């Protein structure tokens, strides 16, 4: 815990740097956000363009815009999206529920499945089934999620007719929701499981080369007991790191699944904001993701301490 407290300044500095980058990066991109407010075939006079620019505050010097941005953040105001016609915070909350809903469940399933399969594959390397999982995991994790999603959509939704082509229903109860969400969750979970399976397998194999599993076996423990009581804990550290690093992906990287299954999540929100240079949305989303990543890293640090006594003792 002392180590965690010691790291707080680091986290705060990271947060400030992230806020600064959040402000700067969208403005460094080429393109004018005003162009997207006007429309493809519309005529707008220079005076009107200037008026819109002023109303968005984009005519002010950058340092003034940055100061205003910091002031807004201090009052927990993420701004207003003139392209989506709503407060950024309300848009993010709405989309976040989606993302947490389907990506959260997929991550949970993917991590559990990946850890269990990876551990089994690592323990029984020579078994055919373990090799099959490993090859399968390599194939899946190296397939672009977009392609994986389209294949699943084509087979299970279109040809077999088992699932809807969209990830979100118009109405209905929990069963309807599950029915719509099942396929995107399954695809994403499969992808996450494959990645974690490979990491866990490698980690378990590495741990098997240590002395403690041998010692545990010598005490008379079965392979299963050695895995469950000793190896699993130590081998899970890289997976925890991976999950913490994956938080950014969890919120934004599921974009391709969202596109394939027409789901209005955070990934789509960020993608659209990048294309249309919607600065407030971009700043808001990036900030939320950055905070999530920092929180996940804090959680990973705490978990490390719980799992590994050496870290807890500061060795």
């Amino acid at each position: 815990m002392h180590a965690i407290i010691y790291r707080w300044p680091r986290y705060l500095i990271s947060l400030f740097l992230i806020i600064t980058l959040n402000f700067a990066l969208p403005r460094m991109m080429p393109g004018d956000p005003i162009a997207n407010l006007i429309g493809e075939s519309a005529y707008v006079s220079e005076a009107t363009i200037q008026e819109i620019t002023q109303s968005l505050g984009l005519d002010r010097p950058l340092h003034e815009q940055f100061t205003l941005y910091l002031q807004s953040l201090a009052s927990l105001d993420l701004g207003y999206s003139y392209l989506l016609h709503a407060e950024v915070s309300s848009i993010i909350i709405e989309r976040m529920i989606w993302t947490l809903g389907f990506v959260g469940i997929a991550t949970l399933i993917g991590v559990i499945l990946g850890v269990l399969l990876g551990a089994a594959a690592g323990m029984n390397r020579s078994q055919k089934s373990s090799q099959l999982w490993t090859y399968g995991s390599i194939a899946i994790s190296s397939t672009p999620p977009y392609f994986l999603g389209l294949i699943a959509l084509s087979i299970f939704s279109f040809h077999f007719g088992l699932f809807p082509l969209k990830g979100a229903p118009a109405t209905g109860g929990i069963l309807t929701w599950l029915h719509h969400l099942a396929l995107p969750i399954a695809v994403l979970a499969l992808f996450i499981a494959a990645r974690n399976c490979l990491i866990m397998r490698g980690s378990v194999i590495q741990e098997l080369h240590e002395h403690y599993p041998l010692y545990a076996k010598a005490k008379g423990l079965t392979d299963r007991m050695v895995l469950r009581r000793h190896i699993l804990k130590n081998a899970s550290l890289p997976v925890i790191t991976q999950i913490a690093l994956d938080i950014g992906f969890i919120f934004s990287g599921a974009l391709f699944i969202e596109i394939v299954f027409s789901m209005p999540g955070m990934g789509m929100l960020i993608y659209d904001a990048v294309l249309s240079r919607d600065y407030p949305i971009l700043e808001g989303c990036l900030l939320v993701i950055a905070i999530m990543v920092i929180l996940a890293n804090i959680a990973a640090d705490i978990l490390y301490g719980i799992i590994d006594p050496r870290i807890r003792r500061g060795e």
Partner: protein
Amino acid sequence: MRIHTVGIVFVTVSILLTAGCVGGDPADHENVLRIGTPMEIKSQNVFGDYNLGIFFALSNPTLSRMNENGEIIGYLASHYTVSDDNRIWTFYIDDSFFWSDGTPVTPEDVAFSITTYGEKIPSARWIGENLDDILIGDNYVSFIFTQPYTTIDLEFCSYRIVPARDWESIDEPLQYTSRGPYTGSGPFYLDDINLQAGILTFERNQHWRGEEPSIDRIEVHSYSNIDSAMLALERGDVDTFYRYAGSYPYTGIQRLEATGNFDFIETTNVGLIFLGLNLKSAPTDDPAFREAIAYAINYEEIIRIDALGYGEVPNRGFVPPSMEFFRDTPPLSYNPAHAEALLDAAGYADKTGNGYRQGKDGEEIGLEILIRSEYARTGELIADYLNDIGVRTTIKTVDATTWFTLKDSYSYDLTITRTTPWGMYMHAGYGTGYFDSRRTGQGVLHYLDDPPFLELCDMMRDTTDPSLQREYAWQMQDYYAENLPGIALYWNKIVTPYNTAFTGWKTDPLYGIYNMETFVNIQRSGA
């Protein structure tokens, strides 16, 4: 035992997750038309969301509309007149239009809506800047402009009329979002905007006095990717496919035909794909150079590769035959030898013998083709054609927003872009809005400041006389043919598939099948 437990859990979960599959298709029991589209709705703001605005026209008709023949006729207005000086436009409101709450559409509603557009909506600010006064009578509204406007009837095809009493308390319509229902006066009103499911629902307007629709509800289902939209149509989740100014993907047509469940409406698009040549810089400002480029392009190959044959080789006059007052100028043709001869004669020769030509300044010509990713294939073909005649090219691919900025600052030599049907009619019409240097806008190139062209634009904008309109339209197409400020690459077909379970589809040059005529005429086959 463990295997059995896992199996039971798996089967149970599978049954639960696929539970929605049983019970049959609800479409079998409802009189609903479902339209699939890749045009996503991003916001519940009917004034601000571009795609929602297009769909909203079904609920809230415009003052005028375009019929199947491309003629402008009254819609909410039974008829309209214009003063001799083209400044005063009077629209007589059709008294058979009623809002979905049972009250009649009034001239006050019309005046309020147009004023709101002019004052509050950036893309319509030109109305506010040029409107001098509005006179409201018992059954008419007169718009008095500060200068002559000859295309108000066309312009007003795109401004939806809303009930004043619902909207006058809303100070900033661009900041107002609502899921619905919206009071409408069309044959259907917009009942619900479900952003998360991507569905717009239109219900029958019980106070509609026009031709009685035979369907009860219209649903617009948007898909984030075109592949899902195509699968949805083929699977029967939706009954037709709609994309403003765009066709059903040509790659999917054969597959749909094979099912035997679909028919197709095929029309020549009023909009087109064209090559823009930056007239603000050399060598593309040289008419002789542009002439050579026009001969270097293999139009038939582009049509075959990019449009899979669903297009025609265009004329030099740019404007497609689907527009009124089309003039049959000579067709563009592929003749690379002639292109090379033209370049040699114009002084763009390969003096160093390295296979590439030099400009008049002695430097090797290097043209940058600025494209958005959707034109990647066409861009590569154009680059190949130009390389074949000794003009070195590079392709710069950017996203749409970057493209807007670069084309506005003339930071390119060539660009490939499109005109929309609406864009072809805007300004003085006939695509002039894309070239006139006095205009600004997201999709326009505004690089042509040749005085005869500008003068002709002004003359076209100053007349409502049909005979003069035709004469000027022909002159403009002749001007295009002679000067080639833009080279049409192909006139494409818009192919709209529909399920044969429905009949009665109508199409207009502006919005395709998405028009009032379709929705009041459409019915289930055999009904």
